[in-house]
């Protein structure tokens, strides 16, 4: 089975020389259809960088980033933007909905930007809202919704148009524990239905919804689901930074 997302030896360095910060140092992993992978790590471990690179929002310094077989690195900017609209769905901690648009308009927007006719895009958006259980709130504005409802809209926007890669960056960060769990159930259900998901979180309870957990430290994968050998901790002070 081919991977929906594959990262091969990805490096990302900010700045140069003395001041260079190595956000990612040779990260490789793959996410297949039907799979949810959690990426865990402390602040500054590189997990958010990893997600922006997987989503084509940032470019690696070296390495390959393949989404459904095409390497995002070698695509033109326009092609990359098209991949973001058609293949990749993003869910952020802060929801990032457009306040002047209703729920259904927010969800339809990426489809309309992709050239889908407005009526079709609306119909698809309503179907996506139905899937996340809030089609009755389709005509509400984000400010008139609770945090949990807004995040459901954001998930609908991430999956509309049958996108197969869902990237979620601390999607439950702003929600209470039970509402957060509802959101994870939705992401999980979407993956069970065939999508590939990457969930960045620092909360183990949320990572536990994933099939695999990737532990990241200082831009390096130190462990996957507790099996691989570990960098020695006391041996390696700040030398690597």
């Amino acid at each position, binding site marked *: 089975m081919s991977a929906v997302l594959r990262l091969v030896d990805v490096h990302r360095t900010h700045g140069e020389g003395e001041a260079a910060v190595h956000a990612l140092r040779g990260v490789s992993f793959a996410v297949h259809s039907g799979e949810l992978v959690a990426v865990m790590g*402390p602040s500054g471990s590189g997990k958010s960088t990893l997600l922006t690179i997987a989503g084509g929002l940032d470019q690696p310094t070296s390495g390959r980033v393949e989404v459904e077989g095409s390497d995002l690195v070698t695509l033109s900017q326009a092609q990359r933007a098209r991949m973001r609209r058609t293949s990749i769905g993003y869910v952020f901690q802060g929801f990032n909905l457009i306040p002047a648009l209703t729920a259904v308009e927010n969800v339809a927007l990426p489809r309309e930007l992709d050239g889908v006719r407005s009526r079709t895009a609306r119909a698809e958006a309503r179907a996506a809202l139905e899937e996340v259980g809030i089609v009755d709130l389709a005509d509400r504005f984000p400010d008139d919704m609770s945090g949990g409802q807004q995040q459901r809209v954001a998930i609908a926007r991430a999956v509309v148009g049958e996108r197969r890669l869902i990237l979620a960056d601390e999607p439950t960060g702003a929600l209470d524990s039970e509402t957060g769990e509802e959101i994870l159930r939705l992401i999980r259900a979407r993956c069970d239905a065939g999508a590939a998901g990457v969930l960045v979180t620092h909360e*183990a309870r949320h990572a536990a*919804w*994933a099939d695999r957990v990737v532990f990241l430290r200082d831009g390096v994968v130190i462990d996957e*689901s507790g099996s691989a050998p570990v960098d020695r*901790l*006391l*041996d390696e002070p700040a030398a690597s930074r």
Partner: protein
Amino acid sequence: MSVKQAMLALLEQEPMYGYQLRTEFESRTGATWPLNVGQVYTTLTRLERDGLIEPAGEDDEGHERWQLTAAGSDEVATWFTTPVARTQPPRDELAIKLALAVTVPGVDVGTVIQQQRGASMTALQDYTRLKRQAGRGTDRREELAWGLVLDSLVFAAEAEIRWLDHCEARLRRAVVERPAAAPSDARNADASNEQAAR
């Protein structure tokens, strides 16, 4: 875990027989704290001796049922209105192991932490899988009870992982702040040779 209190609380609902008590207990707690039937009968004998329960006759199939006495009802009420005592912290093998790992020469604390974190994460994934199977669990009281027990296991495992993360961060800082610790470096070199040899 107090089997005695749990049996009394179940009998508050209605008179039950021994095997039924076990079934009812496990429908609320899953297989988390398995009870053997012998334990249930011993407990019932003691509760009768202490005047907290009394025979309630046989049901249609000839099972000997038990019911609460007035003293038994009082005991249940007191149990529910009294917080669980936190006297001495229970002995925690993991905390003790880490406390020794940072002080005993030649132990790679980083590996100890990461291996434990991996194992705790696997347990947490198992609990979460059970939760997914249990579904929403609000339609039946027993399912809700079982869901809450699962959540308790989930939160405890999460707390352990958070604590391990915290230990790791503190150890790293300790190493950065004390870079010239020569003996400790030599010790670590030994440890890494040992590791390489394995």
